[in-house]
């Protein structure tokens, strides 16, 4: 758990314009109330199983295991979820929270479009207006996801500023939020941003690791030697890793892209930063990042 102000050690916190401070405090209060509310948890698990398709299998990739000739490899099949990615775990949790808070409008940023599609889907399910900010370059690269979001009734706003990718989409979503904060909930798509987003996003995704831990114990009678996840903003990685944090002997490796096209430069920077309202820290730069203690 972070401290009262949302710090994880020297990371985290809340670096936002004054207009957003009180709304974030309200979001934090409502989130922790919901988290402790059995009715909310019941609603969340109902939709996770009936609408989203949980639990997902932990699949033994036999041929990959043989081909690589080393570790026995299991895949946690988040790709089988509705809309095709883990993103919907968080989008669903946050949309239920937005409904509790009486918000009528949903906004989100998206890079590849998976988070945008998940957000458009849950917004449509509950009849909420939905606006998705997406860098103009990403809109072209991921035209199919733009089409899906529009089909789901969302408005997709191509962002023309700067590098015209995820970073600028986040900035534009923040500007929208500052302007419409009374009616609007911002469903941030990964484990970054101002408190309470990182802790909230982690908790909505920890279902990945909770299931995986149970499943591996059933299948193998032991914990894995190593967990691996791709890292964009870190949501699927922290969702998988978190329930294993107290398991000594489980190594954790996050993989990040080395090219700027799929990972904006300020997400790769090693130095601490205070961008995007948000985290005081960026993850380390190397494409292979070991999290937690080494085993």
């Amino acid at each position, binding site marked *: 758990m972070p401290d009262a*102000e949302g710090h994880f050690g020297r990371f985290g*916190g*809340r*670096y*936002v*314009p*004054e*207009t*957003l*401070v*009180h*709304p974030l405090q309200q979001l934090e209060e409502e989130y922790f109330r919901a988290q402790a509310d059995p009715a909310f948890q019941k609603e969340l698990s109902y939709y996770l199983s009936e609408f989203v398709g949980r639990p997902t299998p932990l699949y033994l990739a036999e041929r990959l295991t043989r081909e690589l000739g080393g570790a026995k490899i299991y895949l946690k099949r988040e790709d089988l979820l509705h809309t095709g990615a883990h993103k919907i775990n968080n989008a669903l949790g946050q949309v239920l929270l937005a409904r509790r808070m009486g918000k009528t409008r949903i906004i989100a940023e998206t890079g590849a479009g998976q988070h945008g599609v998940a957000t458009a889907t849950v917004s449509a399910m509950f009849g909420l207006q939905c606006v998705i900010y997406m860098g103009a370059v990403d809109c072209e690269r991921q035209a199919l996801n733009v089409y899906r979001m529009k089909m789901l009734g969302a408005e997709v706003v191509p962002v023309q*500023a*700067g590098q015209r990718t995820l*970073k600028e989409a*986040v*900035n534009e979503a*923040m*500007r929208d939020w*500052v*302007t*419409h*904060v*009374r009616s609007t909930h911002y469903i941030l798509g990964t484990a970054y941003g101002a408190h309470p987003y990182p802790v909230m996003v982690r908790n909505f995704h920890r279902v990945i690791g909770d299931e995986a831990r149970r499943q591996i114990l059933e299948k193998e009678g032991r914990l894995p030697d190593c967990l691996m996840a791709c890292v964009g903003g870190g949501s699927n990685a922290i969702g998988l890793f978190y329930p294993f944090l107290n398991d000594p002997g489980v190594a954790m490796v996050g993989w990040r892209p080395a090219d700027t096209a799929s990972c904006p430069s*300020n997400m790769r920077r090693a*130095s*601490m*930063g*205070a*961008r*995007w*309202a948000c985290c*005081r820290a960026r993850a380390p730069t190397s494409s292979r990042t070991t999290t937690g203690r080494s085993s």
Partner: protein
Amino acid sequence: MSPVSNRIEERFRRLREERRKGLVVYIGAGDPDLEATRRLTLALDRAGVDVVELGVPFSDPLADGIVNQLAAQRGLASGTTPPKVLATVAAIRRESEVPVVLYIYFNLLHRVGLANFIRDAAAAGVDGLLVLDLPPEEADEYEGLMRDAGMCPIWLVAPTTPEARVERIARRAKGFIYYVSREGVTGMQASVSTTIADMTARIRRHSDLPIAVGFGISNPEQAREVARHAEAIVVGSAIVHRVATHGQDPAMPDQVGAFAAELARAVAEVSA
């Protein structure tokens, strides 16, 4: 190194004595280049501007509307960095005592190191910092360093700020309190916000400091209207827009200075 009396506090004391309202003007540093910024700041001083807010250009100005975003892009394109902005302030100080506040995003301070930046800013002759995305909750170290350096930390109050929080902010404020009269980003607006009278009254319940109101003021009529409720008004995008229109024209500082003088006259018509 730290001045005995801060220029911002000094200016507002004088305004109060003379029963005048103040005019704060925002410009983007390095737009179109820092020499133009130096000349423009001096022109604004001559035009009767009371405080000049210099926006330090940043790649992700998420509190800013399109006019100021483009100014920041031009600032970055002209090679403007925080140290160069400080050097420009030092150059301005050779000719002018106009109070200067830097409008800056926290990431820039964080990168240079808070202590270094604040020390260098004070030495250059900066009088206050307005850190857009640094709420008081994150600001203990910042406040201590600012106090030691004799600079005013300028705190924002927004329409969404509840009364208990206004009180907390007011207690920490120095120089003046900035009421951001709109939920939204910087930018010109067709009409002024209707929350101003209520919120300035709310702030006054907790502080005797001057209140400056900004975000969206674009012409002398609006300046006059808002000045009735506050000790000072802030005009940003409407000025920045004019800077952009004149671009590299060497007459830009005088042209923009003339508009600032119009605003100053409008504000002067409202007596305290």
